[in-house]
């Protein structure tokens, strides 16, 4: 009896640890996407519905450059990051700037752009899943029965590295202050000589590039399709509402919270229930603290 029980406990703790590692991985790429979306919303006041498709564009850059053209994987990832960043600049210039005084117009234009990106991916690569041979098959056996693949480790390291760099940039540099100032009061920022066009460009580039790098790094793990942006954008919106709109730190913490809840429910029950739990979490936050867990109170 005792030995059976010990075995069950050992298996359970392995499963728990493995699930936690899976959740850390999920939190990593989700926060990359959600933080970009929050940054764009904070600075420009526009909800970028095409954000999921920017993530998709990052994944397909890797499909094209790494899978088809056999470039080194990390070169393809960097190219994906820069390419999607440039897509962001294009969106800022062609969509959001002309519609600056019309946030609803910006949102609708971004939905149009989402369809363009999706169609471009279908025309270029077809509607089927693109399977990518991972650049590395290496696994780390952290414990008996607890595995972290090297590919997932890349994603975790990229998220920690890039988000820390963004944090330092926002806190310690002049452009970073200007960006936070714009997010808090655009007119007052303009009165300090801060150019809204310049800051919007930078925010859009960074926000898009973060989604791009998330797509590029996860491409070998998720098998990209032109429609992969949908589920991601829904998740990103839940995270933003839970974290508090316009709160970068809130988005990261909410991404971690959401990823843990979602991964655990998926592992121990199923994915459908996990999606429902995610939405219920969002509803609870909306009812109990509509400004989000980390959202500001009313400003005087």
């Amino acid at each position, binding site marked *: 009896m005792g030995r059976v029980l010990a075995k069950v406990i050992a298996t359970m703790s392995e499963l728990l640890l493995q699930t936690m590692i899976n959740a850390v991985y999920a939190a990593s790429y989700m926060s990359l996407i959600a933080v970009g979306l929050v940054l764009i919303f904070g600075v420009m006041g526009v909800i970028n519905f095409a954000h999921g498709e920017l993530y998709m564009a990052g994944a397909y850059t890797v499909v094209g450059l790494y899978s088809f053209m056999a470039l080194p994987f990390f070169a393809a990832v960097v190219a994906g990051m820069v390419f999607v960043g440039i897509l962001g600049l294009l969106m800022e210039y062609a969509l959001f700037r002309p519609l600056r005084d019309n946030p609803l117009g910006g949102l609708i234009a971004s939905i149009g752009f989402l369809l363009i990106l999706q169609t471009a991916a279908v025309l270029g690569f077809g509607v089927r899943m693109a399977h990518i041979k991972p650049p590395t098959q290496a696994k780390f056996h952290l414990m008996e029965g607890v595995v972290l693949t090297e590919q997932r480790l890349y994603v975790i390291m990229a998220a920690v590295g890039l988000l820390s760099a963004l944090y330092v940039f926002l806190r310690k540099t002049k452009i970073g*202050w*200007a960006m936070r100032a714009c997010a808090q*009061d655009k007119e*007052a920022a*303009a*009165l*300090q*000589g*801060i150019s809204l066009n310049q800051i919007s460009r930078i925010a859009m580039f960074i926000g898009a590039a973060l989604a791009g790098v998330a797509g590029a790094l996860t491409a070998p793990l998720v098998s990209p399709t032109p429609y992969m942006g949908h589920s991601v954008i829904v998740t990103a919106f839940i995270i933003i509402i839970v974290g508090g709109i316009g709160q970068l730190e809130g988005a990261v913490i909410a991404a971690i919270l959401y990823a843990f809840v979602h991964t655990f429910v998926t592992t121990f029950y199923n994915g459908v229930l996990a999606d429902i739990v995610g939405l219920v979490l969002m509803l609870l936050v909306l009812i109990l603290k509509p400004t989000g867990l980390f959202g500001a109170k009313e*400003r005087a």
Partner: protein
Amino acid sequence: MLLEVKEIHVHYSKVAALKGVSIEVPSGGIVTIIGANGAGKSTMLRALSGLAPVSAGEIWFDGERIDGRPPEKIVARGIAQAPEGRRIFPDLTVEENLRTGAFLRSDKPEIEHDLDSVFGHFPRLKERRTQWAKTLSGGEQQMVAIGRALMSKPRLLLLDEPSMGLAPVLFQEIAAIVIEIVKGGVPVILVEQNAELALGLAKYAYVLETGRVSLEGAAEDLRENEHVRKAYLGG
């Protein structure tokens, strides 16, 4: 004249907020614009800073035409504004708020010097330099707004309702600092609903009524004016 505003018109959608307003500001002292709520005082300052579109007329600053330019270009020319309602950045620290005022400057040692001189004007801000600006009292927030505008090293300072919501004691404190700033060589346009205080500080005054200048003259003369006494000085 440092600033010449010639017959400017500003429209918000279809409503005219300014209907041909002309003012002149010399390169020293305080010029005040007084008037009731909604007379167009704030719109005037917004137009000067490039935040409100000027549909007709001209604004000349130091020999250059500046109407139609974006706000950041106007700040670069040397016009800074402490706007109505203070509009400080709540989630930046006091020091970060002040430093955003120096956004366009790259003369580092002088920025540090000017930061010290702002802290000299407002010692209370120095004590609170690492505090979030949203935790400050109304008076302290006004100090941040003025200090932030000074950090751009302006050649003309626009102050929109600095007395709003402040206890009289506090406004006296702010008024004393405004006088110091002017003595330091920076001319000020002061927009106020509190005509008593504004006319006490300024050399020259304009009275704005429904988007037009209804009266102008030396501040001391306007204090004696029958209409001004009745409408703005409470008898």
